[in-house]
């Protein structure tokens, strides 16, 4: 591998700009596609409040500006308010990723009272209980919507995430109408169930077939057009529909390689953020929780960030050419491909330094998939 030279190393941020923290291993639900449970992130240990508060002081000294609290279900922690007060005291902003079912009026009021909350992300997978509850459990739709409405009532910025799977792929129009029209959200994000954690066990039930993936792609692009760009995605069918269409257009026109194309550049996270497991172990990403870099309140975060060889391996990944992989041999999209998510590559193949087969356009087409029509794409 070509390793980053001294110049590249010198150009790294001195400290991470943000930190993703799995604040608890506990959750009141067991969603069928949860990436967390049974993954290396699921270490069955929660740290006490004092340990987190001490760590936040270090984040303050490191000039970290924001944390994202996830898990598990953050709202299950009885001391969440004290945790957030610690974040605020240490000059940071925060976001929370939640299933929405445990949000109380008191907590929503608290969140609405601070200017530091970027957003609370609530997972909502459909327009009605049948689709949402199919993977998340009976009664969870009503509770999640109630939690969401409490956040709206107290003017907390709500970000809804729709995970697309077999049970809701035909409910996307109604879902968009429910979220954007009935609930009045300014937008929502989408992804799809990835091959991690509990999802690996339940693939047959949740993973989209090629035809369903194609359907999701086309439906979401059409809906996004209808709703003026209010649907977003950094992964999943909508993101793939956009990216793959760009790649196909470039191939057809014989365009020059994309600036990030032809190498494993699909993940920029190790250049700006780092993660912490529920047991305080520092990892590059909560979806690559098997790569242990140190422990909070024992190892210095700035030292781990700047010097840990495993983290540099993650960063140096960007120099690995796709042409090296048998999997990519002869691919007409090589110059336009980034190899996608390393965590998905790891969960599918057990190797981080490999393109993710899940995000492969050639594979999608070989399996009978078709790209969306040009008129569905944004200019």
């Amino acid at each position, binding site marked *: 591998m070509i390793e980053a030279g001294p110049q590249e190393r*010198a*150009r*790294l*941020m*001195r*400290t991470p*700009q943000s930190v993703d923290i799995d604040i608890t291993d506990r959750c009141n639900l067991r969603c069928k596609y949860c990436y967390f449970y049974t993954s290396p992130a699921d270490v069955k240990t929660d740290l006490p409040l004092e340990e987190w508060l001490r760590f936040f002081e270090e984040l303050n000294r490191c*000039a970290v*500006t924001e944390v994202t609290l996830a898990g598990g279900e953050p709202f299950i922690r009885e001391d969440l308010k004290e945790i957030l007060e610690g974040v605020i005291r240490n*000059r*940071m*902003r925060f976001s929370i990723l939640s299933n929405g079912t445990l949000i109380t009026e008191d907590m929503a009021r608290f969140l609405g009272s601070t*200017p*530091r909350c*970027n957003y609370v992300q609530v997972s909502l997978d459909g327009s009605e209980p049948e689709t949402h509850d199919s993977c998340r459990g009976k009664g969870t739709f009503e509770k999640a919507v109630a939690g969401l409405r409490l956040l709206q009532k107290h003017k907390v910025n709500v970000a809804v995430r729709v995970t697309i799977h077999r049970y809701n792929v035909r409910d996307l129009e109604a879902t968009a109408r429910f979220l954007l029209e009935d609930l009045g959200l300014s937008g929502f994000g989408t992804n799809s169930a990835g091959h991690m954690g509990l999802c690996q066990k339940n693939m047959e039930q949740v993973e989209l077939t090629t035809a369903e993936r194609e359907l999701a792609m086309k439906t979401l692009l059409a809906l996004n057009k209808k709703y003026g760009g209010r649907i977003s995605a950094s992964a999943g069918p909508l993101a793939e529909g956009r990216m793959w269409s760009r790649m196909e257009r470039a191939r057809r026109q014989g365009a020059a390689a994309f600036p990030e194309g032809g190498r494993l550049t699909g993940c920029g996270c190790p250049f700006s953020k780092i993660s912490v497991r529920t047991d305080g172990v520092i990892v590059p990403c909560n979806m690559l929780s098997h790569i242990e870099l140190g422990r909070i309140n024992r190892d210095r975060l700035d030292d781990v960030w700047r010097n840990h060889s495993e983290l540099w391996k993650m960063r140096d990944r960007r120099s690995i050419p796709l042409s090296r992989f048998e999997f990519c041999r002869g691919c007409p999209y090589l110059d336009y491909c980034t190899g996608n998510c390393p965590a998905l590559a790891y969960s599918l193949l057990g190797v981080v330094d490999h393109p993710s087969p899940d995000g492969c356009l050639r594979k999608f087409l070989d399996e009978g998939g078709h790209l969306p029509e040009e008129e569905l794409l944004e200019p």
Partner: protein
Amino acid sequence: MSADKPVANPQVVLREEFDDWAVLFDPDTAEGFAVNPVGVLIWKELDGNHDIADIVRVVREKCENVPEDVETHCREFVDSLIRKGLVGTEVTHD
């Protein structure tokens, strides 16, 4: 407009980067402001104990090719920080 002895808002985060430039980040508004290395030097003097003349002295001492009208530049920079709410003055009660 410049306060006699300006003081940095303690809630504002100074994120120094690899090239000695920095970002001043206001966590209450989520706004960030890019600051050049001289600005970083000045920011670190905004502790409520130094007036503009002190700051100018430090800039002259530590920087090269300092222009004649450096005081005006320093004053304008501090004023811009005050307008953005990143800097204030300490209030003392007699």
